[in-house]
């Protein structure tokens, strides 16, 4: 590496850093692991060791994936699913923030509602699917409600803890300098809550996806959940697993979006590490 340095041009330096990046354990161990697991799985499928009626393998799922997209079935199903996912999150996020803040800030409100909130947090929400269906129906409203129930809990609980864990010595600073309550929210409480909120949003997005599929399985069957279940029922496992792959991709994408938001809103924290 040192001997290359004098002759290295900009291009070769870039190539070298790319190569060096691959040489990092975090990268090459993951690559090897992927090759072994996915490759092994594929090999099992190619050599006829996987019965396509009960399971499938990567290349078959990929082909099925493109087929479903080409026929428009996947996009239609994804559009249908995304409606309840987006609607659910659009309700759960603001409502969760407001409830978490009210619980964290006002003792009376906390005492009035904390029993239900923590009981619901501990309850597997799947168990609520049937009562919700009975009351709100099995269509859009009922399904969206399931997503809301799945997604809202980590937001409420995290925001509540964020408000509660405000640095008491900084609280005293705001009091000492005669801050009004609204200034205190701006200067201290909201910034303190952001990291908790972002962590809550990450959990909420994951749970919202689960809620979406649960709703599509258990209520009126629709969207990606329906697409998957229909093909699995027809013993076409490759097509049945393709929507699952899409759900994985969406899950990863949502997590990334949350991470980017986190970096944006806590630049002071990132700079501290560098």
């Amino acid at each position, binding site marked *: 590496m040192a001997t290359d340095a004098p002759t290295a041009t900009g291009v070769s330096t870039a190539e070298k850093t790319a190569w060096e990046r691959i040489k990092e354990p975090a990268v090459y161990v993951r690559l090897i692991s992927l090759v072994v697991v996915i490759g092994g799985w594929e090999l099992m499928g190619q050599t006829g060791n996987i019965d396509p009626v009960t399971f499938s393998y990567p290349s078959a799922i990929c082909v099925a994936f493109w087929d479903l997209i080409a026929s428009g079935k996947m996009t239609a199903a994804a559009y249908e699913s995304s409606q309840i996912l987006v609607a659910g999150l659009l309700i759960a996020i603001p409502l969760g923030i407001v409830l978490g803040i009210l619980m964290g800030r006002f003792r009376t409100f906390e005492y009035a509602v904390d029993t239900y909130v923590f009981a619901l947090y501990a309850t597997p929400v799947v168990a609520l699917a049937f009562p919700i269906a009975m009351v709100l129906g099995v269509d859009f409203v009922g399904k969206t409600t399931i997503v809301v129930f799945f997604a809202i809990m980590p937001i409420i609980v995290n925001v509540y803890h964020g408000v509660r864990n405000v640095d008491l010595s*900084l609280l005293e600073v705001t009091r000492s*300098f005669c801050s009004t309550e609204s200034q205190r929210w701006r*200067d201290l409480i909201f*910034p303190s809550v952001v990291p908790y909120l972002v962590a809550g949003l990450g959990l909420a997005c994951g749970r919202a996806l689960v809620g979406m599929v649960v709703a599509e399985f258990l209520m009126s069957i629709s969207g990606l959940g329906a697409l998957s279940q229909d093909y699995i029922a027809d013993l076409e496992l490759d097509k049945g697993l393709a929507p699952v792959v899409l759900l994985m991709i969406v899950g990863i994408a949502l997590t990334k979006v949350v991470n980017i938001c986190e970096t944006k809103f806590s630049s002071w*924290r990132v700079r501290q590490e560098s």
Partner: protein
Amino acid sequence: MSSSDNGLNPTLRLQGVGKWFGSLQVLEEIDIDVKTQEILTVLGPSGCGKTTLLRIVNGLILCERGEVSFKGEVVDGPRPEMAMVFQNFGLFPWKRLDQNIGYALRIQGKDKNEIDRLVSHYTELVGLGGFEANYPSQLSGGMQQRAGLARALAAQPDVLLMDEPFGALDALTRETLQEELLRINEAEPKAMIFITHSIDEALLLGDRVLVMTPRPGRIRFQFETGFGRGRDLEALRGGKRFQALRHYLWEAMRNPDEEPEPIPELNLE
């Protein structure tokens, strides 16, 4: 050096202040007058209620007995004429240095130009010019406390309340900041209550030193240091009077139950 009205008009007056936490009495019968532009250092062992006393003066907590008055008005809550410098700096980690220093001004609703002008003035005064865009975590403890001081000064208070502000700093930084504090106070004199458990610090900075007893905190004795303004801290340390006072205070702190032999010079000036 001192003008004649100083003795007559206490800026801050504590009368018979007593404080309990539950059934535990932490302060008893505290009477203090702080004159305009006077630096009062309060010296006492840990747990003698020094910080509690300062929080009562600031109006952050109320006393059960007696009262604090500022220019004749009873202090029943924090007021903008007093500004505190905190032991743990108390800077907002998500605010840049200039935003931290301008914090009190924004709270007071000053207009933006005024804030910018005062922030840049006090940033320079405490020697932090060039670090405006940094976050507190990027700065050393000494620089963070300079920012804490600048924030309090920018609020342009009549009284500065210093809660062991240099207690968390290393010895060298501490000495530098002591000198800086006196230099700044020369430039813009204010009344100051400075809490410390360091004998040297109490003597170096104080016009008057007040010694407290622990549990419950009471005033044990107080005296004028008589070192005057514009003091040279290096020369002061080597001086006879400083050494004598230092020894006296050391004996007093070591034997909380008996008063040390009086030193004649103490009552001079």
